[in-house]
């Protein structure tokens, strides 16, 4: 596809929670991200799709700070976070999940969940000895929040299980819940239903929608077309490291360029 076909994303939105400007990243000679500028409007579930090798995960890594960008800027709530480390960006409200579920060795689901909220008073050694009651209060509140959230996601019964015992899908639910406890301004979900059975995938979709209705903004990468088409609006399409176009599910579905990108697109 020639360069003119690349229309780019919509950059005129109101109340933008996440914005990237001209992001670039190359590995050796291979350009993975090529002048990508996108905006995510607060309160939306924005989808991101594209054929394999389009650069979606790379973009996520650039936005969240796990890759260093060669050029461009990332802005959260109007604040430039490009020079910040991943954990600092998370503190600014930009929280991401990972494609493969991270099982935490030796930790129960409850423990795994409790790592989410932050910053916690009990994370300072000093407080553990001199502000014990504050730590207790906060921990109690977090334990309660954990219990409620897991109940809400219908996996409350798993709370005592070792997190390594959970199925992939259940783990993804836990990760969604845990990411939510960080109280993020925007949640970046990296393939939240990859390899998950259809029933559980539907549950995940339902919960994402519920959280969104309560005000949570999402940016979601997914390969599962029916899933993302049913859930997200708008949808950004990436191809060969560039933004091809952005539109509603119907617009994307019927766009010739998108179809061509997928059919003639880059192989594995």
């Amino acid at each position, binding site marked *: 596809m020639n360069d003119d076909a690349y229309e780019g994303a919509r950059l005129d939105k109101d109340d933008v929670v996440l914005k990237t400007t001209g992001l670039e990243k190359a590995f050796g000679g291979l350009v993975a991200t090529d002048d990508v500028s996108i905006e995510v409007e607060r309160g939306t579930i924005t989808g991101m799709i594209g054929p394999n090798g389009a650069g979606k995960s790379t973009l996520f890594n650039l936005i969240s700070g796990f890759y260093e960008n060669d050029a461009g800027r990332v802005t959260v709530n109007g604040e430039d976070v490009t020079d910040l480390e991943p954990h600092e960006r*998370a503190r600014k409200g930009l*929280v*991401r999940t990972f494609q493969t579920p991270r099982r935490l060795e030796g930790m*129960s689901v409850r*423990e795994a969940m409790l*790592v989410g909220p932050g910053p916690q008073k*009990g*994370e300072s*050694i000093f407080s553990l000895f001199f502000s014990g009651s504050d730590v207790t209060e906060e921990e109690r509140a977090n334990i309660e929040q954990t219990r409620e959230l897991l109940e809400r996601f219908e996996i409350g019964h798993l709370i005592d299980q070792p997190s390594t015992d959970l199925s992939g899908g259940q783990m993804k639910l836990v990760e969604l819940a845990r990411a939510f406890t960080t109280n993020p301004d925007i949640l970046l979900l990296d393939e939240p239903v990859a390899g998950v059975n259809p029933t559980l995938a539907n549950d995940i979709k339902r919960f994402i929608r519920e959280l969104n209705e309560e005000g949570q903004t999402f940016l979601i990468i997914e390969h599962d077309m029916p899933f993302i088409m049913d859930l997200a609006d708008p949808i950004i399409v990436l191809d060969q490291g560039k933004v091809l176009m952005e539109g509603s599910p119907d617009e994307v579905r019927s766009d010739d360029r998108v179809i061509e990108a997928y059919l003639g697109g880059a192989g594995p």
Partner: protein
Amino acid sequence: MSAVTSWVRETLVRDATERRIFAALGLITVLLVVGVLTGVVGLRFLLFQIALVGMYALLSLGLNVQWGYAGLINFSVAAFWGIGAYCAALLTAPNSPLGLGLHPVFGFLAAIVVSAFVAVLIGIPTLRLREDYLAIASLGLAEVIRAIILNERQWTAGSSGISGIPNLMSWLPLTDSATTAAIVVFLIAVVYLFLRRVHRSPWGRVLRTIRSDENLAKALGKNTYRFKMQAFVLGSVIMAVAGAFYAHLNLYIDPSDLVPLTTFYIWIAVILGGTGSNRGAVVGAAVVIAIREGTRFLNDIGFIQTLGVDLAPLRLLFVGGLIILIMRFRQDGLLPPKDELIWPAARDGSGAGGASPSGAASDGGASSNGGDDR
């Protein structure tokens, strides 16, 4: 009395394997007591061994903070121990090159300050990078520290060593060996309780997350570098305290113990005992001492000579083989950690689950770790 039994049940005998281990330890203790009473085992010798085990236990607890809690690979245990020992010796021995003859308290303080400083120095370039860089750098640090101590004779007395280190608290009405043993037990108790508090807490939880998956911790907003540095410094300080204690136990130090083998003894103690478990670290230390003294005993009675070999390489072979076997067959160790890392005060009364995350809180249940069939 019921409080004690419930503590014992919750801390020491949570499943079949643990029961066996503590039963074995109990048996050995009984045998030792009988041995002392019948005169087979000298009391002073026994007390010295107890103090030595205590010192190893402190070192293991320190390494456990770094490796067990945070997943940091530190191959310079001997170096930090050496720093502690030399701080204590140089400041308190009247005939040391510094000749200050200060009170042991200053030795311990210096040990803490210097080791913390060196730990930060090593941590800065390595803790932001992959774990094996710390492994390599710490190995290098160990050799550099040893070289400095060996070569800067005017400060450290080099290979001659430093003697005349004073005993601790000799004004107590007990024998020196009893006092020293009691002191190390006290130190262990303090360190153990301190570590328990910081481990079963949000801080401990973040470290365990970092150990399993550092990127996840970062994505959740945790400043992993700072947490790792805290664990590293804490562990190093504990190791230095152990070293300072050793100076006052042995009353003489020289650089010959600052060899990598010492470091790997402690590694065995921690991974055999159960990575991440404080109790495991203490038990592992006891096992390592048993190996050391066992082989020395065999050497003294000439058994090893009949095999035509020397003691030192045999120990080396044993330690190396043990590391390989543990990694292959029982990576969890003898007493793997079972505590949920949740602030205990918050857990009580909120209906949250008990100690074991394996779901089967009853004993003998098919525990997923530490069980017989593996």
